[in-house]
C-alpha cells in the first residue's frame, strides 16, 4: 500500500520536475533569465530582515555596562579604532600595511631610550592579535551581522525563539527536500552536457568554427551548472572582459570558475587530478587548450611559466584564468598574490568576485570539508548571489617588478570588490610564519631606540 502511494506520489512529481529541468536548460541555452531567481532572492532578503528582529538582544543593563567601558577606552585606543575603520571601508587601504599590525608600534616618532614599559606595547599588540587577528579569521567562515537560518552559521545565535525555530524547520525542508534534489539533477545534467559537448567538439579540427562552437557549448553548460547553485550573478563593466592574455581573480571557492565561465570562456591552468575532477579536466582539454600539468611538473616553475607564456602569445587561445592567491579566502579580503603570473605577462585583466554571504557561505574551508562536502553545502544553501567586476586591463609600469605589479593589481581588486587588502600570504592557512618575518618589527623597534 505504502509502496504504491510512494510510486503515485513520485509519478505525480515527475512532470513538474521535467518541466522545470527543461525550462532551466532552455533558458541556460539562450543565456537569459525570466527573473525567478531574482524574485526568490528578494523574498529571502525579506525573510532575513524579518528574522533579524527576532534574534534576542542582550538585556539593557548589561549593555550599558559595556558601552560605559567602551567609551572609556575609546579615547585611548584610537589604534584599534583605526583598524576597525580600515575594515569598514576597505577602499582606502591602498597603502597596505607592510609590517602587519605591528607597524603602529606607538613609541612616538622621535628616538627614545629603552624603558621597562616598552614590553607593554608588545604585550598589548599580542593580546589584540589573540582575541582577533586579520589573518586566521580569513580562513574560516565569515561572520554575519544577522542569522540567515542556516545551522552552520548559527554559532553566535544559539538562543532561538520558537517562531524562529519553526521558520528554520520550514527552511530546512525547502532546502533539503525541494531545492537540493532539483539542484543535484541540474548539476548532473550540466556536467553530462559539458562532457558530451566537449567530446564532440574534440573531433573537430582547429578552426574558428570550433572555437565558436566551444564558446557556445561551454557558456551553455556552465550556465546550467550555475543554476544548480541558484546562482544570481551580476556582471559589471563587461566591456573590460578579457579576450586573451591573463585574467586574475580573487579566490573563494572552486565554484569561482563556474561563476566566471557563465559569462566568458577561459582556459584553465592547474594540476592534473584523478577521479571525477580528472574526467572534467580531460573533457575540457579536448575542446580547447587548457594548461594541465602533472604533479611532477608542478615543481618546475620554469616549465609552467613557459607553457603559460606560449599559451598567451597565441591570440587564438582563450584567456587564462588564474587565482594568484593560491588558496581560498573567505570572501572578506584579498591576500598576497603570487608573483608568477605577473612575471609572464605585462598586461593583466583583473576580476573581482564578491559573494553575498547572507545566502550561504561560498568559502571553501578545505581543511574542514572536502570537495563534495563543499559542493553539497553550497547546493543546500539558499542561493549563490554574487557580483563580478571586470576591471580595465592593467599594464606593468616601467621599472616596476612583478611583486609590486601584483600588489597593485591586488589592491585594485580589493577596492572594487569591497574587500580588505592584506599583504599576508594565503599559504599561512597551512604553514606557520617564516622566521624571517620576525625581523621586521625588531628592526622597527631598534630604529626607535636611542643607542649610545
Amino acid at each position, binding site marked *: 500500500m505504502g509502496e504504491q502511494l510512494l510510486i503515485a506520489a513520485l509519478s505525480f512529481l515527475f512532470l513538474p520536475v521535467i518541466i522545470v529541468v527543461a525550462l532551466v536548460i532552455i533558458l541556460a541555452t539562450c543565456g537569459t533569465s525570466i527573473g525567478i531567481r531574482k524574485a526568490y532572492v528578494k523574498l529571502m532578503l525579506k525573510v532575513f530582515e524579518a528574522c533579524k528582529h527576532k534574534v534576542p538582544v*542582550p538585556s539593557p543593563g*548589561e*549593555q550599558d*555596562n*559595556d558601552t*560605559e*567601558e*567602551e567609551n*572609556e*577606552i*575609546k579615547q*585611548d*585606543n584610537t589604534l*584599534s579604532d583605526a583598524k576597525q575603520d580600515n575594515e569598514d571601508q576597505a577602499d582606502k587601504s591602498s597603502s597596505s600595511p607592510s609590517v*602587519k*599590525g*605591528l607597524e603602529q608600534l606607538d613609541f612616538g616618532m622621535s628616538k627614545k*631610550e*629603552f624603558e*621597562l*614599559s*616598552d*614590553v*607593554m*606595547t*608588545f*604585550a*598589548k*599588540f*599580542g*593580546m589584540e*592579535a*589573540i*582575541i*582577533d*587577528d586579520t*589573518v*586566521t*579569521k580569513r580562513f574560516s567562515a565569515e561572520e554575519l551581522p544577522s542569522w540567515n537560518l542556516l*545551522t552552520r552559521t548559527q*554559532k*553566535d545565535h*544559539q538562543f532561538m525563539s520558537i517562531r524562529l525555530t519553526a521558520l528554520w524547520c520550514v527552511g530546512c525542508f525547502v532546502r533539503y527536500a525541494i531545492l537540493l534534489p532539483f539542484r543535484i539533477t541540474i548539476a548532473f545534467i550540466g556536467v553530462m552536457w559539458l562532457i558530451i559537448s566537449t567530446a564532440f567538439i574534440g573531433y573537430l579540427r582547429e578552426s574558428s568554427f570550433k572555437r565558436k562552437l566551444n564558446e557556445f557549448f561551454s557558456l551553455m553548460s556552465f550556465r546550467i551548472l550555475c543554476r544548480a547553485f541558484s546562482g544570481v550573478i551580476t556582471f559589471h563593466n563587461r566591456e573590460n572582459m578579457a579576450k586573451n592574455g591573463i585574467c586574475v581573480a580573487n579566490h573563494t571557492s572552486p565554484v569561482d570558475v563556474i561563476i566566471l565561465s557563465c559569462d566568458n570562456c577561459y582556459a584553465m591552468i592547474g594540476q592534473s587530478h584523478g577521479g571525477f575532477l580528472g574526467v572534467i579536466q580531460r573533457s575540457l582539454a579536448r575542446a580547447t587548450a587548457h594548461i594541465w600539468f602533472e604533479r611532477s611538473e608542478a615543481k618546475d616553475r620554469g616549465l609552467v611559466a613557459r607553457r603559460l607564456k606560449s599559451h598567451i602569445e597565441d591570440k587564438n587561445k582563450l584567456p587564462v584564468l588564474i587565482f594568484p592567491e593560491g588558496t581560498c579566502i573567505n570572501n572578506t579580503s584579498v591576500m598576497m598574490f603570487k608573483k608568477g603570473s605577473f612575471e609572464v605577462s605585462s598586461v593583466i585583466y583583473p576580476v573581482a568576485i564578491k559573494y553575498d554571504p547572507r545566502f550561504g557561505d561560498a568559502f571553501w574551508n578545505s581543511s574542514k570539508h572536502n570537495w563534495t562536502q563543499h559542493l553539497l553545502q553550497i547546493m543546500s544553501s539558499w542561493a549563490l548571489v554574487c557580483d563580478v567586476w571586470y576591471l580595465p586591463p592593467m599594464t606593468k609600469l616601467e621599472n616596476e617588478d612583478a611583486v609590486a605589479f601584483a600588489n597593485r593589481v591586488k589592491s585594485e581588486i580589493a577596492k572594487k570588490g569591497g574587500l580588505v587588502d592584506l599583504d*599576508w600570504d594565503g599559504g*599561512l592557512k597551512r604553514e*606557520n*610564519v617564516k622566521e624571517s*618575518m*620576525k*625581523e*621586521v*618589527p*625588531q*628592526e622597527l*623597534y*631598534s*630604529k626607535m*631606540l636611542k*643607542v*649610545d
Partner: protein
Amino acid sequence: MGARSSMLQEDEITAIQKETGFSSNQIVRLYSRFTNLDKNNQGYLSRADFLRIPELAINPLGDRIVHAFFKESNSVTVNFRDFMRVLARFRPVKKNNTKNKLNDREEKLRFAFKMYDLDGDDMISRDELLNVLHMMVGANISDEQLGSIADRTISEVDLDNDQNISFEEFVKAMERVDVEQKMSIRFLN
C-alpha cells in the same frame, strides 16, 4: 559538523563572568574565538594553536605572551577558563570597580613583570633583561650596546643595589607610566 566542541553552558558563563568581569556577550564571543583557535577541536589550546596567529608569531615577544597563558594554566594546555583569566588582565580599568581584581593596576604590572621574569623568582636579573632586549631588537643592535642598556636600566631602578629588579622596584619605576592605558585593549561585544 556536529562534532564541534560543546556549546558554552549558562552556569559556566556566569562563573567566568564573576571571575573575570567580562560581559556574557564578550564571553560568548571570545569562546567562539577560542574554538576557532582550537584547530583540532580538543577543547584546549596548545602552543602551536597560539603561534598559528601570524600577527602573534611575528611579535618579537610573542613567545613570552604565549608563555603567560601556560603559566596561568600550569600545564601544557590552556583551557577556556585560563584563557579568559589571562585576557582579563587586559580589560580596561573602570574607576569605581572594586569587585574584580584581575584587571587592576597591580595585576597589569604583574603581567608585564612576568614577561621579563622567566624563571619566576620574582626578580628580573640582568640576563633576563638582556634576553627580552635581545628578543625585541634581534640582530640590529650589538650585544655590547644591549649590555650597556641593561646596565643603565638596572642602575636606574635598582634601589637595594642587588643588581636585580624586584617587583617592588619595578612598580616604583612604573609610577609615572600610564599602565592602565598601555595594558588595556578593547573587547568587542
